[in-house]
């Protein structure tokens, strides 16, 4: 009798321990699941947020930034597009792109499909290097590999080259891939964190302007929605009196909120571009663009 009770209590004890173990394992898995980024779900939620906030704006029209937010501006822009201010840069880019390097090779040799119609695939994740490769970075690496000096990331030549490459991809939807590599997912997550992190003395994140306040004015400017914000890059900005690349956009955003900008093409900016491009997957490339 005594032995039977002992066996019974042992069984109870064991099953309770098993239950506890199962519970703690389950909760650990749940916690892990909450921490693992889900880019596909993020992109869906991101696009839903903007289409619900602006039900009158067609999904593809978000790539037109402030022009999608305001009818008057949209009309002005359509007229401006007949003689677009980025035309000079586009012509220069086309010329530069086709001109061979001193070693006889050219940009076309560095890219798939000779560099034509591929803008929508950048940034890519390089599994060999374990890092994000933006188009601007790939262009300078191409130059360096062929014995040419790299260009400034923020304007002029770099803007001209990316303007031409974007132009050959106009209308093609962003198609950013995140390979099954934990480092790619980490880069994506780092980019997302950068996007939402407040910085600078003004305590703004990218999202403060481009998620919480698109369509609103910040002084004389109408803020662009984050959805599709890179599809139009590079851009001619009247405020800058010239062309600017994605690098220029990121660094000036940072200094405008009184933060010291990072180096163009630093890991943070590359990851940010990766995140922002991924969540705009499916929206067409519209670059080069023009902005007030």
């Amino acid at each position, binding site marked *: 009798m005594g032995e039977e009770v002992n066996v019974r209590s042992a069984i109870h004890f064991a099953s309770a321990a098993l239950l506890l173990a199962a519970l703690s394992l389950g909760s650990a898995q749940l916690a892990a699941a909450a921490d693992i980024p889900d880019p596909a779900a*993020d992109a869906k*939620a*991101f696009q839903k*947020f903007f289409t619900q906030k602006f039900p009158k704006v067609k999904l593809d029209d978000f790539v037109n930034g402030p022009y999608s937010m305001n009818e008057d501006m949209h009309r002005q822009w359509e007229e401006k597009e007949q003689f677009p201010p980025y035309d000079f840069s586009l012509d220069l880019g086309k010329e530069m792109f086709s001109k061979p390097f001193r070693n006889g090779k050219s940009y076309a040799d560095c890219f798939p499909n000779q560099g034509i119609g591929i803008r929508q695939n950048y940034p890519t994740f390089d599994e060999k290097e374990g890092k994000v490769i933006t188009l601007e970075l790939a262009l300078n690496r191409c130059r360096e590999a062929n014995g040419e000096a790299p260009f400034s990331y923020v304007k002029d030549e770099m803007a001209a080259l990316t303007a031409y490459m974007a132009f050959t991809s106009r209308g093609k939807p962003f198609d950013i891939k995140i390979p099954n590599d934990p480092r790619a997912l980490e880069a994506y997550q780092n980019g*997302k*964190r950068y996007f*939402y*992190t*407040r*910085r*600078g*003395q003004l*305590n703004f*994140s990218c*999202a*403060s302007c481009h*998620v*919480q306040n698109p369509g609103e004015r910040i002084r004389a400017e109408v803020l662009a929605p984050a959805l599709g914000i890179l599809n139009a890059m590079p851009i001619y900005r009247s405020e800058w009196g010239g062309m600017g690349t994605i690098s220029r956009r990121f660094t000036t955003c940072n*200094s405008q909120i*009184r*933060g*010291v900008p*990072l180096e163009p093409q630093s890991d*943070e900016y590359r990851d940010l571009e990766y995140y922002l491009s991924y969540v705009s997957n499916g929206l067409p490339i519209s670059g080069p663009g023009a902005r007030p």
Partner: protein
Amino acid sequence: MRDNMLKSVLALTAVLLIAGATSARAASSEADFKAAYAAAEAANKEAASLRNQWTTTAAALAAAKKAADSGDFDQAVASSKEAEALAKASIFQATSEKEAWKALEIR
């Protein structure tokens, strides 16, 4: 003799009083500036390691150096202290944002 003693005591008191008064409203020295500037620079370096420096910190540091170069150590110390306060605020921001950014995320 006694008069003379009184005079010298009075003179000494006057000297001490003047010395006391000037030291109470003492101008900052170059050493004060150097200490304040080093503290501000150290905080700004920490902000740099968090990849979160502010442009206003850099401006206050530059203003401190400019004031020191022109011999205005009061202003140099004041600007250094401002720079240190700004750098510390940027460190606080970077630290609190390590978790706080998630509150803004679109889900």
